[in-house]
Each structure stands twice: as structure tokens, then as C-alpha cells.
């Protein structure tokens, strides 16, 4: 019943993903090998985590373009602390920083009523700049082997530990969002904020927590990035905001809010991760990566907007027509 609403959109995305693999497989059969598929999914783990976080914000009808800078800053903080031997702090402090950035964004959007695109564009600039200040523009290198190794260990010989935990997290969050009372507020708030307010749902509070979740997940993404890449440059995570927003949209999450699921974000992130590898297997330069992501994003958003506009127009006409019909019956009575 409820699934009827989410699953079709995520299903389309899964079909898209499968077709993409099959299509590329026709050109280059090696692409369809089990190990390549796994490698592709595992390589998308950072996108997936950040996309799941930002999905909460997008589903409430807002946007967060500061995730790239959040990821970069938290990765740099984690990297320096771990390099200097503070393993525990290197994990905890970045998470706190991520939450703090989410709190700042949430505060600006819900209490100061700054449009979320502007608020997060501003914080994106601030925290990107802070990476340069913090690292003095230098790369963070020489991370201990055991830290870097955390990203390599496999579970059941297939998924990396990170991807496995991400999938478990996805399932838990999916149930949180569809089954729990506060979890369902996110979609309600994005779907019709006034209606939600009328039902006593804390609209601003829900949006606020969405930003905090997004900040936290960007920080988790930052930790994973530090582990996986092994060094952090000042431009780490740059452009991730477009990738993860595109991932959400590809996964069936509407930018106008109220539509979509965590599963969709995960599938969308897998598609994003695949595109880079597809280019390699088709013999194209990966320079096309961002261009293709951008084109996909716009095609889907335009398609969505056209559908929404026509249905809103239909509703308006129907409503106006209903009044006339009623008038006829009254005057004839």
C-alpha cells in the first residue's frame, strides 16, 4: 500500500541501473563481471552515505549544497588527528563538526528564514575556506596503515565493511522514515507544509533535524573519504553536492519535496558511481563525468516539473469548473 508510492520510482532507477550495466556490458563484457559490479558499488560508498543524509533535506523540500565542504572539512580534521595519533578523537570530532554545521544550516533556514540554497551556499563557502585555513593549503598525508586499511576489509568476501554498514543503515533509516511517527513527518513536511502545520506536525523542527542529519552524514562520508583515499587535499569533496543531489533525483526523490525514499537515494548513488566507471569501460575520458551528471540532473528535474505543472493546472481547472456546475443546480432549484 504505502510501498506503492515509493517503490515504483526507486524501481525505475534500479531498472535504469541494470540497463546501463547491460548496455555497457554489450560493448565491453568485462563490465558485467561480478568483481567489477562489486567494485563499482563499493566505490560509491561515500556518495551513498552523503546522498542518504541529503535525502532527508530534499524530502522536506529544502536543499543543502554545503555537504561537499562539510565532507572536505571533516575529512581534513579526521586526517590530521589520526595522523597525530588521536584515533578516537579523529573519529568523534569530525562527527561533532558535521552535526554543528547541520545545526548552523538548520538554524539559518528555519529560524532566520534564509532560503536554504543561499544559506548552504554561504556555509559551503565558509567551510571550504576553513579547510584552507585549517590545513594551511597543504595536503594531509601519511595516515596510518590501520586507518586506511579499514576501508579495504571485506565482509562475506563481497562488500567492503563500509558499504555493508551503509546498506544496513539504509534499511534501518528506510524503516524509520516509513514506519515511525517522527520519520513520517519528513515526507509530510515536504509534501504540504501548511497541511502538516495544521495537523500539529512541527514543520520547522523537522526541517531543522533534516539539516542536522545531512551534516552528520556528510561527516561520516568525510571519515570514509579519509580512509579510502588516504590523503586529503583542500579540494576534497568539491562538487559532491551536485553528485549527491543528482543521485537523489535519479533515485526518484523530488526536489519539490514530499516524494522519494532512502532506498532511492542509495540506488541513485550507485548510478552516479557507475557513470565514472562506465566512461572508462566505454573508452571515454572521465572528464565527461560532471557534464553527464549535470545533464542527467536537468533532464529529470525538467521532466518532473512539467508533470507537476500540468497536474496542478488540471486541479485548478477542475476546481473552478466544479463551482460553475454547483451554481447551475442552485439557481435551478
Amino acid at each position, binding site marked *: *500500500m504505502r510501498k506503492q*508510492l515509493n517503490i515504483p520510482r526507486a524501481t525505475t532507477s534500479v531498472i535504469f541501473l541494470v540497463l546501463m550495466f547491460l548496455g555497457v556490458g554489450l560493448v565491453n563484457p568485462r563490465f558485467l563481471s561480478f568483481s567489477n559490479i562489486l567494485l563499482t558499488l563499493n566505490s560509491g560508498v561515500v556518495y551513498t552515505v552523503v546522498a542518504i543524509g541529503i535525502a532527508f533535506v530534499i524530502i522536506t523540500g529544502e536543499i543543502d549544497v554545503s555537504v561537499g565542504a562539510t565532507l572536505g572539512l571533516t575529512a581534513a580534521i579526521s586526517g590530521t588527528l589520526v595522523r597525530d595519533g588521536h584515533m578516537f578523537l579523529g573519529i568523534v570530532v569530525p562527527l561533532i563538526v558535521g552535526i554543528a554545521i547541520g545545526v548552523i544550516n538548520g538554524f539559518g533556514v528555519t529560524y532566520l528564514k534564509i532560503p536554504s540554497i543561499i544559506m548552504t551556499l554561504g556555509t559551503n563557502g565558509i567551510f571550504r575556506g576553513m579547510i584552507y585555513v585549517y590545513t594551511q593549503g597543504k595536503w594531509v598525508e601519511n595516515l596510518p596503515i590501520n586507518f586506511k586499511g579499514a576501508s579495504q576489509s571485506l565482509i562475506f568476501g563481497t562488500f567492503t565493511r563500509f558499504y555493508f554498514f551503509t546498506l544496513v543503515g539504509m534499511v534501518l533509516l528506510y524503516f524509520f522514515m516509513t514506519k515511525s*511517527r517522527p520519520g513520517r513527518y519528513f515526507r509530510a513536511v515536504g509534501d*504540504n507544509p501548511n497541511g502538516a502545520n495544521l495537523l500539529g*506536525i512541527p514543520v520547522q523542527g523537522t526541517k531543522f533535524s533534516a539539516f542536522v542529519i545531512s551534516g552528520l552524514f556528510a561527516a561520516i562520508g568525510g571519515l570514509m573519504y579519509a580512509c579510502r583515499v588516504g590523503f586529503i587535499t583542500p579540494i576534497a569533496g568539491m562538487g559532491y553536492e551536485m553528485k549527491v543531489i543528482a543521485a537523489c533525483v535519479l533515485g526518484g526523490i523530488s526536489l519539490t519535496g*514530499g516524494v522519494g525514499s532512502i532506498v532511492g537515494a542509495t540506488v541513485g548513488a550507485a548510478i552516479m558511481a557507475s557513470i565514472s566507471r562506465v566512461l572508462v569501460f566505454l573508452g571515454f575520458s572521465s572528464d565527461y563525468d560532471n557534464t553527464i551528471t549535470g545533464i542527467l540532473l536537468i533532464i529529470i528535474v525538467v521532466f518532473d516539473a512539467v508533470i507537476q505543472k500540468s497536474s496542478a493546472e488540471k486541479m485548478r481547472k477542475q476546481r*473552478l469548473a*466544479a*463551482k460553475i456546475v454547483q451554481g447551475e443546480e442552485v439557481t435551478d432549484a
Partner: protein
Amino acid sequence: MLKDKVFAMEEKKSSSLLSVRSITKSFHTNKVLKGIDLDLDEGDVLALIGGNGAGKSTLMKIIMGIYQQDSGDVYLSGELINMSKPSVALAHGVYLVPQEPMLFPNMSVEENIMMGFKESPKELQKRLATLMQQLDWKIDVNRKAESLSIAEQQLVEILRGLLRESRILILDEPTSSLTFNEVQALFKIIEDLKSKGIGIIYITHRLNEVFTIANRVAIMRDGLITLSGPVTNFDHEMLVEGLLPDALTHQETKVVAEIKPIEYDTMKPIFKVENLCGNGFHNINLQLYPGEILGLAGVVGAGRTELATSIFGRDEIISGKVYIGEEDITGMSTREVMIHGLNYVPEDRYAHGIFGISDVSVNTTSSNLVKKGKFFVNDKDEKDITQRYIDLFRTKVTGQDQIMGSLSGGNQQKVVIARALATEPRVLILDEPTRGIDAGARGDVYSIIHQLKSQGLAILLISSDFEEIVELSDRAHSMYFGRINGEFSKNDITQDNLMAAAFGVSKRRIANA
């Protein structure tokens, strides 16, 4: 007088289901509610009627906790409640079914109904099924709310309220978009709820419904309850009278103008609308003569603005014809309609009318941009035109470069009218030209309108202020649910007639009552 007699009959009860006492509310300097007392008992259906802007919706939003009152108290069953937010109202069993259903379009009916409950979904599903069985409503709970008709959405809203076991249900114009059969079904439900002791506040614009469904009635006008009591004490005529202002409040604005009678026999209409159908209006026929003011009365939502904007090329026309002189302008774009000599001064200045952060000069001449075929804007032309209208309308500005948004409402309206005139139209549609402006400015706008009339401009005056129509119009039509339901010649334009027609009461019915 009759009103005073009825007013005295209303006794205050302390243990009513709902009592509001001396509620006041202002938005900026605008006093919307000026001390409202209202009581609702168990099993009451209280019909609340009043013109647009009387404060009905504001009052309901205060009871629902969406707005907070400036002063006054809300009591539920004798207990003082601080309605700080909607969840407080919901917890106390108050539920508002808004005029435009506020569903979550992307969720299923079931999700919509069950949203925001603390109970387990299983229990809720069971209660919902029982409730729907009791009411004998058949609606597929798995459908997406988006796909429901307005009537179905309204039913879902009511289900929501009932499932919350609300004791007070506020229905804001519930029948405004329902068909005849759906209205009958709704009335049956209301009767049923009444017998279960639920108190209902029923806001409506249809006086007939008051007598069908309500046992008590209250009339709001200008932020006050002017009349209330058991329905049996009233008839149609008394309600219409209650809706009218006490005395002519605009008296100070009366403009003494020589009214040249229009020679309808010899003149040809400059503007004709024939069997026009569109979104929100049906089969409209109008004729407008040079130098004539034709009033178009009705309540908000009657389809007048939709008619005007469609003629102005902003919405599609389904069938019928519009002529200026002999020229057919049906379905032309806004730009072409303006070039053919028709302009429209919109109802909502803030949304459509002004460029708030531009100066007066830019605002006055901005509609000229479409007419002057040149690429560059002529500065001197702009200044001349602007100055001419500032002088003509006695607009209070510090200079042509004053920012539009800093002008008072009345002066903004003058600039907006000036802008429409700057295109030198032959036909002007004014939509609520004096809404939200003070008495002095209103007088100025009226004299502007008279001035234009004497210059031979044909004016279609859309107004919900019937006094305005009485004062200015040579002829008047009334619109009711998308159709013209009354045509009045100069002598028949009275507030009584317009009010009755706007609320869908026929003359015959008043005569019988």
C-alpha cells in the same frame, strides 16, 4: 431596530463546548477582529456568515491556534486554553477543515488520514474502517490524494477530523466545490454528527444552507459579530440586512458629479462579451458603453477575477467571443489586448500590480513598454507621463524617484491606475480598486474613476464592496458561482439587491419570506 432585538436574545453560557470572549486581532495597523464573543454548545451547528474580509477565517485560525489573538480568551468546556499552536487545538478536540483541502498530495488517503497520530497504525486502520462503515463512505484508501476530486479531498479532511474524535469541527465553506449530491451527503453526515453531540461551526456564503443545516446563526461584519441567535428567529431578509453596513460608512467620500445619463439607444457598445466560457466562469454576456461604469458584484470566488484575467489574455478562453468596438480580441495575448485598448488593474497589488523596489516613474510607464515599439526607453517621455498622472491624481510622492513600496496603499493604487491609463485604453477593468486603502484615498480613487468616465472611458468595476458599486455604477451585474445571476439598471442598484444576488438569494424568495 430588528438587529438590537435579536442581539439581546443571545445569552452567554459559561460551560459551552467552546466560548471565545472579546477576541481582538490586528495585522499591522489593520484591525481584523474587534472583540468577538461566540459560543458553541454540544450538538450545535452554528452557521457563520459574513462578507469577504469580515474576519471569519482569522477567527477560525485563532481558535485552531494558527494565529494568536492580541487579546481575549478561548475557553473549551469552561476551561481557559492557551491556543499557542495547532497541536494544542488538536489535543483538545478542535479540528478545522479548511476551505481548500490541505492534504499531502503525494501520500495515499490512508497515510493522509493517519498522519500525526500517536496510536499504532493497526488500531487506527481498524477505527478508520469502522468509521467509514458507520458513515457509509466508500473511498479507496490506497489512492493517492492527488488523484482525488475536491469533494473527495473534503471527505478525507472530515474523516481526519472525526478519527481524531474531535468535539468541535470547523467547516470552512465545505460546499463551495461540492456537487449537489455531495452536498446532500455532507448534510446527512452533519445531521449524524449533530446527534452525537459534536459542535460544528459552519462557514458559508450561501444563505439557503443556513436554514437547511444550522440551528444557530451568527453574522460577522467588519471584525464584529453583528447578529446572532437561533435560526428560527431569522428569515432570509433579516440575514441580508445583517450583512449590510449600519449606515453609509463611505459618506465622506461621496463625490458630487454630474451624471450624464447614457443614451443606450443611440450609442454602440465599445466592449462586448458574448457567451464567454472559461476556467471559473460560464456563459458570460456583457456590454459596456463609452463613458459607462458597469459594476460587477459578487463574493470572492464567484469567478469575476477569473473572467477579467481571461479577457486580459492571462488564462485560456474555452468558448465565446470578446470584442472591442468591432474587433474580435478573443484569446489574444495580454500584450495584444493592451494594444487593442483594454487594460486591467489587478485585485492584488502586491502580487501582480507593483514593482515594489522600483520608483514611481518606472511603475507608471512600465506598461507602456509594450506599446512603444522602440528599443530604448525615452527618459523625457517617461518623466512627462509620470508627472501628468501625479498631478492629475494628486498622488502624494516625494518625487518621481520615490520607491513604490514606500508609498501608502492608496497612492500605490493611484500609480497602478495611472500605469494602466498610460497605455491610453478605451476599456478599463478595475478589480477591487479600493481594497485595503483608507477613506481619504478612496475618495480620490472615486473621483479619478468619475474623471475617467467623463472622458468617455468604459469601465468594468469589479468590487465586493457593494456600497462602491451603488455609488459609482451606471448599471450592475452580479455573479454567483461563475454565472451572471442578476442584472440591475441604475435605479435597481441597491445594496440589498446586490447582497441578495451575491449570496444566491433570489428576489422572489425574499418577497415570500
